[in-house]
């Protein structure tokens, strides 16, 4: 067994142990902290699978933004009262659930060990057309060129999720702002974090978007980092969540899918078919779409975390 294999095995055990902790922990907060650590460990697993783009997404969204969502909503539930009120499951139910879980995991493991040989792959096709897109990162090419329609629809799903969250607001606060994310008074360490991290984070987010054409990175990862920076500033109460009726916010939310769709509809004129990019000019168009996607993601994720409007719109 080489060193690398030992490390891989250790990483696998660590991931499973932390995942077990998030299930077994008594306190919600402990469980969420476990989940954030789990997401970061999982992104190391993604690196080992030669998937740096996925690793970045998992670290930023799967672990980071989901962690903020769960911590914030846990605090909101606690403020409202009995968060631990529900009855725990009895031993027989636990046993049955464990049996079912083992069965499902064993079936899945069997399938994984019996995957077909030689494995099916689209990598050669993805590589052949890569020069035509002007990109060097095949994952970005799949996202914004080969399967661009999927990615556009996925952006619309994000907008629909925001509409869904907002529509849970009572009528009287419609158009108002969501509840603040942080405590009443800004704290020193948090303000220091703002000053030290946020300017740097904005640069890193834009950089990761920009290099995503050729290196690991892209619109999702860069947008998620920008979203995180906005959330840090909101948590320290230097700024409040905006009114959901604000025009600039709504424009930012739909800019990504709208520009994407407009370029797709212009496809028949530019490249011959729906979502076709003109030959030799694909890369500037892809970066143009991605820039608006970054904006939309950076606006969507914090609004999903902030939740439905809670304050009446007149101030």
């Amino acid at each position: 067994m080489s060193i690398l294999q030992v490390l891989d095995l250790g990483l696998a055990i660590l991931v499973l142990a932390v995942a077990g902790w998030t299930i077994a922990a008594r306190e919600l907060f402990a469980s969420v902290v476990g989940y954030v650590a789990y997401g970061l460990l999982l992104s190391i697993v993604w690196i080992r699978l030669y998937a740096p783009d996925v690793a970045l997404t998992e670290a930023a969204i799967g672990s980071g933004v989901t962690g903020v969502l769960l911590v914030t909503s846990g605090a909101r539930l606690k403020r409202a009262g009995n968060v631990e009120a529900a009855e725990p499951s009895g031993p027989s139910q636990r046993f049955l659930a464990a049996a079912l879980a083992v069965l499902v995991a064993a079936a899945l493991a069997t399938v994984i060990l019996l995957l077909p040989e030689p494995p099916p792959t689209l990598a050669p096709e993805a590589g052949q057309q890569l020069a035509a897109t002007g990109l060097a990162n095949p994952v970005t090419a799949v996202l914004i060129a080969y399967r661009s329609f999927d990615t556009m629809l996925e952006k619309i799903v994000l907008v629909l999720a925001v509409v869904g969250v907002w529509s849970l607001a009572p009528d009287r606060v419609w158009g108002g702002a969501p509840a603040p994310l942080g405590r009443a008074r800004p704290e020193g360490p948090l303000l220091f974090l703002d000053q030290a991290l946020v300017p740097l984070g904005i640069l890193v987010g834009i950089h990761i978007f920009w290099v995503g054409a050729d290196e690991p990175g892209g619109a999702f990862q860069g947008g998620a980092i920008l979203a995180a920076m906005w959330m840090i500033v909101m948590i320290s109460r230097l700024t409040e969540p905006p009114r959901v009726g604000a025009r600039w916010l709504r424009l930012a939310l739909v800019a990504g899918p709208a520009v994407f769709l407009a370029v797709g509809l212009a496809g028949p004129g530019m490249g011959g078919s729906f979502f076709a990019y003109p030959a030799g000019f694909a890369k500037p168009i892809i970066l143009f779409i991605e820039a608006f996607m970054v904006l939309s993601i950076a606006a969507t994720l914090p609004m999903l975390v902030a939740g439905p409007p809670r304050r009446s719109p007149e101030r």
Partner: protein
Amino acid sequence: MNVSSLAGLVGAALVGLGLYGLIVNPQPLRKILAFNLIGSGAFLVFGIVARRGAAAAFPFDPVPQAMVITGIVVAFAASALAVALILRLQEETGKVTLDPDVPSKPPVTGASNP
């Protein structure tokens, strides 16, 4: 055993762990967390499909990887919607459980007396 099947087995175990947590844990937020564990296990299984598809100078198949990236983002959006629903349920009924047998908070006195 190579890295990709080890990662696949971890993915399978994560699906199992998440399923157990989803059934056993009564708190809705913990259920969402467990559901996210199932999701990341499934993504990991998809990730080894991508790794096994290495060909043509790429150490991975980019198509499944791109789908996992969109999947992570959609999973977050779904979690956010679920959390908002739970907070609204709590606001409406005063309880933080999905169990229909648990009585809800008694109505404010004075409102029910004619």
